[in-house]
């Protein structure tokens, strides 16, 4: 693939890709919730959350914090969460990441994973608490496998997002 766009159409296409790949990939990850599995217990992590954290940690500059409002609303509607759950939690994660970035000033791979793990854990806890408020009195231990799987799956998702980012910005 040539590094220099040959025509106006090519420029427009690359521009579209540069703009919409992060949003598109996050929404595609939300749509994964429509796959027709009916597992007995929650084991598979929420991929959309991992993707959105990975984009946020990899490219802090592409999204303002309020971008998570729209992405979260889409995820709530598609995944069948109580309306407002992902909206609130994802935006809180973004704001916290902003704060951590301004506080740390520097982070490496392990710090990314640590931040993501904390975000996944707190997200799981908050989602569990919202479910309890909604009348579903399950134990948090039920969600532990899903949370641990999410923390372990984060590096793979981050690698995937990195690949998408490279494809998005050909240089």
């Amino acid at each position, binding site marked *: 693939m040539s590094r220099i766009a040959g025509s106006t159409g090519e420029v427009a296409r690359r521009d579209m890709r540069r703009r919409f790949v992060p949003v598109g990939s996050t929404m595609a990850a939300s749509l994964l919730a429509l796959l027709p599995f009916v597992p007995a217990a929650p084991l*598979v992590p929420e991929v959309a959350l991992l993707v959105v954290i990975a984009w946020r940690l990899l490219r802090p500059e592409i999204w303002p*914090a309020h971008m998570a409002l729209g992405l*979260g609303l889409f995820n709530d*509607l598609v*995944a069948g969460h109580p309306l407002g759950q992902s909206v*609130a939690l994802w935006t809180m994660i973004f704001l916290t990441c902003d704060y951590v970035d301004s506080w740390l000033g520097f982070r490496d791979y392990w710090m990314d994973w640590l931040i993501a793990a904390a975000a996944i854990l707190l997200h799981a806890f908050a*989602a569990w608490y919202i479910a309890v408020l909604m009348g579903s009195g399950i134990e948090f231990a*039920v969600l532990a496998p899903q949370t641990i799987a999410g923390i372990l799956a984060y590096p793979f998702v981050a690698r995937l997002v990195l690949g998408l980012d490279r494809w998005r910005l050909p240089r």
Partner: protein
Amino acid sequence: MAPPSSRRPGFSRRAQYGLFIGYVVAVAGILFAILLLVIAAIDPRGFAAVRGAALDATAPISRGASAVGGFFSDLWSGIGHYWRAGSKNAEMSRELAGARRQLVRAQALEFENRRLRQLIGVAAETQDEVTVARIVGSTWTSGRRFATLSAGTQSGVAVGQPVRAPEGLIGRIVETGRWASRVLLVTDGASNVPVRLVRDGTPGLAVGRGDGTLAIRTLEIGPNRFRRGDLVVTSGIGGIFPPGIPVAQVIRIDDDLAIARPVADPGRSDFAIVQRIYQPAATGELEQSPEEQTAPVTVAEPPPASGPTAPQTPAPRQQSPSYQPALQRPQAPVREQPR
């Protein structure tokens, strides 16, 4: 990797204000989302229109993918069965022997049930099905256990209706779209199903634990009457679920709880049957007090109490005041604290 300095956009006032307004919008959005959650917690049917529309829009995708997904899940469970063939065989022979015994008991019970029902004049409501649909998906990314059903209001599906598979109970409709609806599975933490033990009729309340099992609380004081392998069926109390639908089989006893596994696996059932609400007066109660929607038991109050609130209730069917007194009194404390 150093984060770019977009967090402090230089000395431009305009850029600084832009960033500040972005944060204001984000915080306002969070507050608004929390407000939505509070409304949803108070009134579970608050955003029925929006959620129903989203359900309609997304269900076709699941429906299309379910053929592929079914293939893979069959493949996966096929491998699992191959690995566990020996132990599975022994276990199934044991279960079959138990099932034969239970079948005989069930037939005896069925006969006695019919006789008693004639005796006290409980007319069996019409139990014809509303529709037959497929389960096309679930909320597998969250701790809740909801399944998506490929039939909605257009097929006559309404909130509250029980959903069953040929093998047993699956759950209850909680949200409807035009072509799709959402089912609260019996394994969800918010699902309470009034059950009774097939063997001797001990009443209980089957509450989901979220991990694919149910906890059955007995409503009677005394030693735990449930044993491993016992089958529980719906008791018909509460008026939502018709009586006699198999719900779960006890796999373990935990002190005063019995842990049971549902007999119907919604992930493997080809079809789900949506049935009418057993006693339609129950929906009147539900609409008046939505916060009690999670506890279908509440409508099992003695008929005189529910008379004025639901005028369409026919004359009390249970003439005898001593009819199932043990089932009706201890339910209130159980409902107050689901966990």
